[in-house]
């Protein structure tokens, strides 16, 4: 459902500016949203370096965008208060990329019914449809799951839904604000002719016999086998959990058939990194001995080493037996490489071995921690109070916990808590600008098709609680007493998050619960670097700017209005207007009140040329006239007219 016209397209790499007005959490979430574009589409984002057109994201009133590239230079996109959810930002940027809302398609009425008398008066036009002369469906069927679809309660005047899907099962699907749907991606990649993405590298569920081009290692003592079942486990693969008869394969290393210390190596195909950092994710099942282990190696190729240099990256030990478990391994490879999975037979007795499935490799950052919640189904609806994660430490050393609430009949909630930890004496309090990102993982085998649900919370050191204390102060000071399951006492700070993280309906959909396991991926990043008003980049026309000269200083610019979207800036202590410009037009004047364009220049040039020509013509004619007159005088009538006989000789 995109706007028609090539002039609305952006380049594949979109220049952007995150204005200082944005909330800190919003800045972090916007950068996370860009990572989702980089993983699943060919759209990339880069800080503005003076390109003619760029998107300026600022904290306006509400969440809104324009449609397509308006080619106005500085194109605004507002991420205001409460808009700092990743899918909201993905939604607004899809507008900027040229997409309308899904239910405004010309064929909308084939799929949903609009209940007009339940719409707030005056808002009916929000439900207009537009024919295929003005918007293009890109040949993709109507998409109930689109991140661009209204929810069933949009603009309702009461409690009844304004949209009723003709297929009832989709009633609670429309209006999802989790992630791009498959069709969103299909349309976007079709509109921008994407054939690859910046950060996706590989995904393998071993359903195809070519096993994604993986090869058996050489020099090892056993091979990995492609199986769909092992007597000692797993009974089925992880991709489909055995739901598909005749399908569902994984790779298995039978450690019971080799002696202690024997290894089987499985190598990935050759991979070509672009960003220099990667995250390897896969599911692992251990049905061998508790001492079996899986080693992850990298074979990196460089000019000097034709066969590549093999380096051990991680040793995965103490692998729990009897269930599929998710693992992440961060990599840092800059040259062509292969990933090697080395299964090693441990000393203990083995009845089976190691199995791997659903491998994904992308040039993204791995989550810092994984909270695996087992037997989740029985917890839903039965848990009163909150479920707490194990304690984790952030890279900066802050101890934290996540809490999940499942007792509300409609929504599950999620909260981030700081807790007392071993490093507290050396840390800064209140905790400054740590962004906690909590992701409920959609366990789809292919990372590109996952629609994970995510929320971020940032610790603002100046935030105060109802009682006036600093919210993110030291937990031993402001927190409550609590006990770990082993009885150890600690103090837990107040949690911050949302009671409306995801509905129970959605939680039970897709692959959020798989093998009765739920995974919450956790990352706590220091985003204080986003807080400084860093000097703005130098536009290509060479006029250096610093954020102080571009960022309006409230005092000088308050009463200094610029017209035609001009921006007030302070230069040499004086308020001035910076005027917008386009490819062939610009505004000028002290207040950007005058408009200029290359057409004017052409007119001025032509008219001045004509004027000069006219003047020269007049001058030429005059000079010819004067010359002839003088010539005629010289040879004039006095000689010619004097009779000869009257002449006197002296």
């Amino acid at each position, binding site marked *: 459902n995109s*706007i028609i016209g090539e002039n609305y397209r952006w380049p594949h790499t979109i220049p952007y500016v995150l204005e200082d007005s944005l909330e800190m959490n919003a800045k972090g979430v916007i950068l996370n949203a860009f990572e989702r574009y980089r993983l699943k589409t060919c759209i990339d984002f880069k800080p503005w370096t003076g390109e003619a057109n760029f998107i300026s994201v600022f904290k306006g*009133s*509400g*969440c*809104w*965008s*324009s*449609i*397509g590239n*308006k080619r106005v230079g500085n194109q*605004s996109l507002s991420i*205001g*208060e*409460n*808009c700092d959810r990743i899918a*909201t930002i993905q*939604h*607004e940027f899809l*507008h900027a990329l040229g997409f*309308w*809302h899904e239910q*405004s398609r010309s064929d909308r009425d084939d799929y949903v019914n609009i209940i007009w008398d339940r719409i707030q008066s005056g808002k009916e036009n*929000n439900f*207009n449809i*537009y024919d295929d002369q*003005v918007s293009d469906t890109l040949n993709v069927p109507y998409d109930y799951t689109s991140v661009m679809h*209204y*929810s069933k*309660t*949009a*603009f309702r005047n009461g409690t009844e839904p304004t949209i009723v899907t003709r297929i009832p099962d989709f009633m609670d699907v429309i*209006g999802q*604000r989790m992630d791009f749907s498959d069709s969103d991606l299909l349309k976007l990649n079709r509109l921008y002719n994407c054939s690859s993405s910046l950060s996706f590298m590989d995904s393998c569920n071993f359903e195809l016999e070519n096993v994604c081009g993986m090869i058996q290692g050489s020099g090892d003592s056993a091979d990995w086998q492609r199986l769909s079942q092992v007597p000692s486990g797993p009974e089925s693969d992880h991709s489909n959990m055995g739901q598909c008869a005749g399908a569902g394969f994984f790779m298995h290393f039978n450690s019971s058939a080799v002696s202690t210390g024997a290894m089987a190596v499985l190598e990935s195909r050759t991979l070509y990194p672009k960003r220099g950092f990667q995250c390897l994710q896969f599911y692992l099942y251990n049905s061998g001995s508790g001492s079996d282990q899986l080693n992850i190696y990298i074979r990196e190729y460089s000019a000097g080493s034709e066969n590549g240099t093999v380096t051990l990256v991680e040793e995965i030990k103490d692998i729990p037996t009897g269930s599929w478990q998710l693992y992440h391994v961060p990599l840092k490879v800059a040259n062509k490489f292969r990933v090697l999975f080395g299964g090693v037979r441990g000393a203990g007795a083995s009845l089976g071995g190691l199995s791997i499935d659903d491998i994904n490799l992308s040039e993204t950052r791995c989550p810092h921690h994984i909270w695996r919640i087992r037997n989740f189904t029985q917890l839903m609806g039965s848990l009163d*109070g*909150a479920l*707490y994660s194990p304690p984790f430490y952030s890279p900066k050393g802050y101890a934290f916990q996540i*809490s999940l*609430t499942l007792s509300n009949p409609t*929504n599950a*909630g999620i*909260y981030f*808590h700081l807790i007392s930890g071993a490093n507290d004496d050396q840390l800064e309090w209140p905790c400054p600008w740590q962004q906690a990102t909590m992701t409920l993982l959609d366990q789809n085998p292919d990372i590109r098709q996952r629609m994970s649900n995510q929320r971020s*919370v940032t610790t603002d050191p100046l935030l105060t*609680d109802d009682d006036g204390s600093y*919210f993110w102060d030291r937990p031993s000071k402001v*927190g*409550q*007493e*609590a*006990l770990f399951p082993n009885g150890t006492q600690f103090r*837990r700070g*107040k*949690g*911050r*998050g*949302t*009671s*409306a993280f995801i*509905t129970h309906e959605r939680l039970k959909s897709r692959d959020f619960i798989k093998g009765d396991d739920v995974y919450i991926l956790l990352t706590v990043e220091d985003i204080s670097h986003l807080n400084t008003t860093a000097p703005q980049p130098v536009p290509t026309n060479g006029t250096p700017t610093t954020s102080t000269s571009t960022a309006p200083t409230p005092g000088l610019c308050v009463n200094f209005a610029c017209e035609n979207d001009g921006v007030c800036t302070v230069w040499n202590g004086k308020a001035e207007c910076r005027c917008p410009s386009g490819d062939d037009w610009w505004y000028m004047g002290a207040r950007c009140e005058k408009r200029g364009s290359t057409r004017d220049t052409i007119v001025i040039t032509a008219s001045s040329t004509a004027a000069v020509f006219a003047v020269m013509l007049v001058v030429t004619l005059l000079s010819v006239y004067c010359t002839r007159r003088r010539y005629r005088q010289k040879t004039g009538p006095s000689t010619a007219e004097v009779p000869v006989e009257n002449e006197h000789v002296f």
Partner: protein
Amino acid sequence: TPEHFVKDVDGGIDQDIFDINEALGLDLFEGDIRLDGVQDR
């Protein structure tokens, strides 16, 4: 366990884009689109 000691930033309501804009009194095209004359549909 002690009572669930938290601050709910959503106040218990799952606010969509259009709810947020409506509460602010914005009257944008289809709730969150800023159109200019050239693009009026």
